[in-house]
């Protein structure tokens, strides 16, 4: 079966984000960008499905400015077969991304779409569920284990109190959680090979989707800062502070 994986270009998880002085957003110019870590897990899972013989072709899709090609190249270097870039400089919110993905699904007819459960920039945790709703497909969100069955998937999901396992019929949407797998590093030969893999570029207009945002960001501020406290000389002093000053034990 064909598998579609969605990959988002985000500020690298090791970067300390800074709020812009005019409070319009977060500084992203000259900041290291990487693939959203949850999406990396999605790419890895698709590759493992292919290695097991369940998946036949893996298509990596990204959306945004031209630089998102780099994110697709990373997926190709890990093992995806080809890429699709929905190129736009407009702000894309989860509902718009879900609609664009739906249009690509209509064209490519995958049996499974894998997305990260959330992007580490906007922390929305919405796109996979929205895509499933728009397609009328079942969803296996926050997956920590996938077991392919005949025309179905058994998905173990991370829920607040532990794990829940559901069986969903294919075609389906899956979103990944941390424990699903550990993504591989792309080897140098595979990085070289990825340069020759095709990336198709389309636009929201060509897909017939109006990506206009439904939510306006009025301002972005920094949360209250913590200041460094005191160093205590020994355990006795620490216990005293926790008991009598902080009153937390």
């Amino acid at each position, binding site marked *: 079966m064909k598998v579609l994986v969605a990959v988002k270009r985000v500020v690298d998880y*090791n970067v300390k984000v800074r709020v812009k002085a005019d409070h319009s957003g977060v500084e992203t110019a000259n900041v290291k960008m990487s693939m959203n870590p949850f999406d990396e897990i999605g790419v890895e899972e698709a590759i493992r499905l292919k290695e097991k013989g369940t998946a036949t072709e893996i298509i990596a899709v990204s959306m945004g400015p031209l630089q998102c090609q780099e994110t697709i190249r990373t997926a190709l270097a890990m093992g995806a077969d080809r890429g699709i870039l929905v190129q736009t400089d407009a702000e894309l919110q989860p*509902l718009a991304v879900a609609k664009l993905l739906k249009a690509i699904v209509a064209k490519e007819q995958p049996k499974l779409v894998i997305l990260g459960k959330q992007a*580490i*920039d906007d922390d929305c945790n919405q796109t996979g569920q929205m895509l499933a709703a728009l397609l009328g497909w*079942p969803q296996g969100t926050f997956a920590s284990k996938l077991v392919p069955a005949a025309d179905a998937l058994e998905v173990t999901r991370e829920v607040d109190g532990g794990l829940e*396992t559901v069986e969903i019929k294919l075609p389906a949407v899956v979103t990944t959680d941390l424990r699903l797998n550990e993504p591989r590093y792309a080897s140098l030969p595979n990085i070289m090979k990825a340069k020759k893999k095709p990336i198709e570029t389309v636009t929201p207009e060509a897909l017939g989707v109006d990506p206009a945002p439904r*939510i306006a960001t009025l*301002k972005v501020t920094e949360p209250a800062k913590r200041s460094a406290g005191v160093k205590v000389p020994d355990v006795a002093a620490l*216990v005293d502070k*926790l008991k009598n000053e902080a009153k937390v034990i």
Partner: protein
Amino acid sequence: MSILVIAEHDAGGLKPSTLNTINAAAKIGGDISVLVAGAGCRGAAEAVAKITGVVKVLLADNAAYAHQLPEALAPLIAKLAAAYGHVLAPASTFGKNLMPRVAALLDVAQISDIVGVEAPDTFVRPIYAGNALATVQSKDKIKVVTVRGTAFPAAPAGGNAPVEAVAEAAADPGQSKFVRQELSKSERPELTAARIVVSGGRGMGSGDNFKILEALADKLGAAVGASRAAVDAGFVANDYQVGQTGKIVAPDLYIAVGISGAIQHLAGMKDSKVIVAINKDEEAPIFQVADYGIVGDLFKIVPELTAALPSKR
């Protein structure tokens, strides 16, 4: 204007997160109805009817809603939502799984994980794992919102709302089915709900050494967490991870042991009320966010601390 709150409940009854969500609804203002959907959930409906501010409880008690799978629940909620200005649910794995599906069926955006209400259409929510706060305004007719429980106090008891059965016929789309549930049976509290968290980092040296943290945690009635470095080194499993790509925690007391304080870890715990750092490197960045720090050998300090604490049990 009226608000529909989606109750979270399980076999054990109403979940407390529902009460925090009702409080957020009260902040928005308007009549609050609560939907309790599931199978055999009359008890939860009667419990939520007694909460202050609730004017009506809608009960959808049907085998099709057993285990509250989103494929069956979302169409029901989308139908009911037409009569409301807002639909709210807790930002738990239950609400996060369900609400974007509802929003997409309504062709509206969803606003995730709000921590503040500025106006009926304007909310504050953390982005970048809480490293920034965004104030966002919805332009949609129906606002579909999930609520971070720790940001709103629980709505108190004191109401007496009528419980009405939902007239909508239930249809199970038959796309998904519940197989099983394995809830963690740890003696220790859940990481994201614990009042105290004890976390270890690369400085722990090995997974075996986490035993000294577990002893400390048990003395405090605390959960055990870890930094990404400790997880990557294979000391503990992934679900221990606190940080931007792991779990976000905000306990009353967070004890960071052998954790240097990488940005991505700080993102997951900096909203803790009191932070204690134990590290041999006095230059470690963790000390810049810690209320109390001890510089020294954790293998000496942690057992000493455990011994100095009175037992909670």
